[in-house]
């Protein structure tokens, strides 16, 4: 078993190093690491086909509880996460194809009469709200693009707004179960619902959002107001309706979105699992697209689905199950429990800040996937409520990612779009605004977690 432990750790660390340095595409890295875990750790060292079977977790797909009634296995590949993300991606691609996001952004810009400071606040709130339901990369992709277009037309610097949008997308994502991949992993692995997240992380995020809006308003107001003075008089403002590529498709996309949001909000009552909701989102998008366009368009939408991310998850979950099966994560759990001396406040502080710092530097998905079994073991051994640790982990990993340009995928996409449009955002510039905001929000989260859970 010692040998299995050593190899599991070596494979995990190598995988982590390769993900961070991006020497290879990250899905290839996790898939190879996953295969190495199965061959070296499970088969060669442990000689256990049972461990292989548990890590692949295929049997969960044919159980009723996987689709209806709850009860997700925390061990092995978290298929619920993968199916849900796939379904939501298809839906979001359908919405983007119909022009929904561009229309929404331009409509709001028009409502605030294209004034930059109200635009900043509205786009921040919209970024946080949309990220509660759809992935933050898509939110930023559309919001940042519209911001850049408006900036070119209205002659203002888009960087302050893009930075604020990125921060709010990550913050909004941490409010719900489906907002950010770490939350989906935590929620599906530990059996929490959309509402559980909303009432816990959502409440804290709501308070933090007030401070964040205030922070960005105070720091970004001046340059935006100054740029407004240079605005030419002969501007041709964009028409929001021009973004709509197909009216039937547009209405269909909104209907599908509303149905899926309703299913997510009520899934603890209907007992539909998130995997089922992901499948429903896909089916509804297929129907809506085929009615509005044609099956060929559906093919285009499917081609845009980020399969590499889904494969990345498959490999990652196998590697983490290698650590779990060999008992490595229990060691980490005992270490943190010992360090905190069983004091729940210290435990919250350690998990929150470590996950925030870690997520600011490296991808938060592998970290969250690794930490789920750790907090389970901590809850069992130290007698701490699992819920408390789960919300702490979710907030730390989701919000910590905002601190640096590489902390979350939304940051990478936002800064990349900005650079391509002639507005490069250096590390220094990014961290100058978003790192202090991250520290402020993590501090707020810590205080609120203390108040609510100790």
């Amino acid at each position, binding site marked *: 078993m010692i040998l299995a432990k050593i190899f599991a750790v070596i494979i995990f660390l190598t995988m982590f190093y390769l993900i961070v340095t991006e*020497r290879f595409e990250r899905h290839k890295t996790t898939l190879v690491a996953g295969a190495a875990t199965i061959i070296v750790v499970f088969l060669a060292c442990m000689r256990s086909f049972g461990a292989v079977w548990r890590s692949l977790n295929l049997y969960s797909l044919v159980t009723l509880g996987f689709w209806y009634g709850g009860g997700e296995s925390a061990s092995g590949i978290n298929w619920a996460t993968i199916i849900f993300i796939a379904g939501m991606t298809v839906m979001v691609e359908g919405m983007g194809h119909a022009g929904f996001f561009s229309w929404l952004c331009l409509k709001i810009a028009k409502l605030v009469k294209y004034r930059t400071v109200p635009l900043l606040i509205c786009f921040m709130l919209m970024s946080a709200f949309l990220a509660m339901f759809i992935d933050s990369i898509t939110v930023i992709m559309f919001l940042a693009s519209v911001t850049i277009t408006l900036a070119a037309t209205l002659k203002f610097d888009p960087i302050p707004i893009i930075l604020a949008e990125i921060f709010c997308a990550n913050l909004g994502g941490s409010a719900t179960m489906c907002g950010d991949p770490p939350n989906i992993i935590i929620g599906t692995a530990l059996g929490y619902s959309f509402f559980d997240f909303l009432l816990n992380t959502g409440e804290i995020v709501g308070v933090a959002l007030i401070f964040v809006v205030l922070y960005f308003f105070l720091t970004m107001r001046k340059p935006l107001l100054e740029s407004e003075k240079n605005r030419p008089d002969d501007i041709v403002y964009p028409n929001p309706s021009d973004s709509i590529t197909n009216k039937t498709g547009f209405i269909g996309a909104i209907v599908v979105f509303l149905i899926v949001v309703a299913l997510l909000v009520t899934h603890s009552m209907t007992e539909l699992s998130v995997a089922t909701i992901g499948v429903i989102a896909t089916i509804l998008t297929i129907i809506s697209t085929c009615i509005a366009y044609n099956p060929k368009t559906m093919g285009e939408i499917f081609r845009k689905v*980020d399969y590499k991310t889904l494969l990345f998850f498959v490999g990652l979950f196998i590697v983490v199950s290698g650590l779990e099966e060999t008992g490595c994560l229990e060691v980490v759990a005992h270490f943190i429990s010992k360090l905190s001396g069983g004091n729940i406040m210290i435990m919250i502080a350690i998990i929150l800040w470590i996950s925030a710092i870690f997520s600011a530097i490296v991808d938060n998905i592998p970290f969250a996937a690794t930490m789920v079994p750790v907090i389970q073991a901590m809850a069992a051994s130290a007698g701490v409520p699992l819920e408390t640790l789960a919300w702490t982990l979710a907030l730390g990993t989701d919000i910590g990612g905002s601190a640096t340009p590489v902390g979350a995928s939304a940051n990478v996409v936002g800064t990349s779009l900005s650079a391509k449009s002639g507005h*490069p*955002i250096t590390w220094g510039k990014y961290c100058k605004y978003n790192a202090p905001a991250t520290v402020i929000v993590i501090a707020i989260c810590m205080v609120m977690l203390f108040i609510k859970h100790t």
Partner: protein
Amino acid sequence: MSENKQLIITIGRQFGSMGHKIAHQLGKELDLPVVDKDLLFLMAENHGFDGDFLKNYDEKPVNRWTSGEARGMSNSIEKVLADMIFKYQSDLVATGGSFIFVGRCAEWNLRGCGNHIRIFITADDDARIAHIAELRELSKKDAEALMHKMDKRRKNYNHSHGNKHWGETENYDLIVNTSDLGLEGSVEVIKNYVNVWKKKNSIDTDD
């Protein structure tokens, strides 16, 4: 013959080997436009960038530790700039005109574009150090340090964009050591090569 007028010359160069000067002299003698650092300013004009700001990121490798990728996008300004440069190079070639491209991974980016001569300019270390020291008014020690730093940077830049054999023989049609030939001699050698190549491949770049 009139259909075969395009000629693309890419010049890779070691730092201090006079590659830049050779490219411009060659351009003058062959009457071909040279695409060098100035393309940054052209791009800056087209995209609303600050050209001086871009210079800080030109021919710099992507730092793996400070860059991330998502959905095919990168936060690295070096990478964004390099992609824009590659697109600009390809767009220029697509116009059908003939050009001399200096550095910036052009030999790799434009591979397979047809009528493409890949040249690499090198020189002995002593000659390069002397050249750098004179040009930049540096001591020999500082010039040597700068030479190593820039060579490493160019190599890493090419490597990070897929050009794994930068400076290696299999990557080029002609490698010229300028130490003994000097500027004029090197240009003469390259010009002769280009003329023979053009004749052999029935290329006529003259209007």
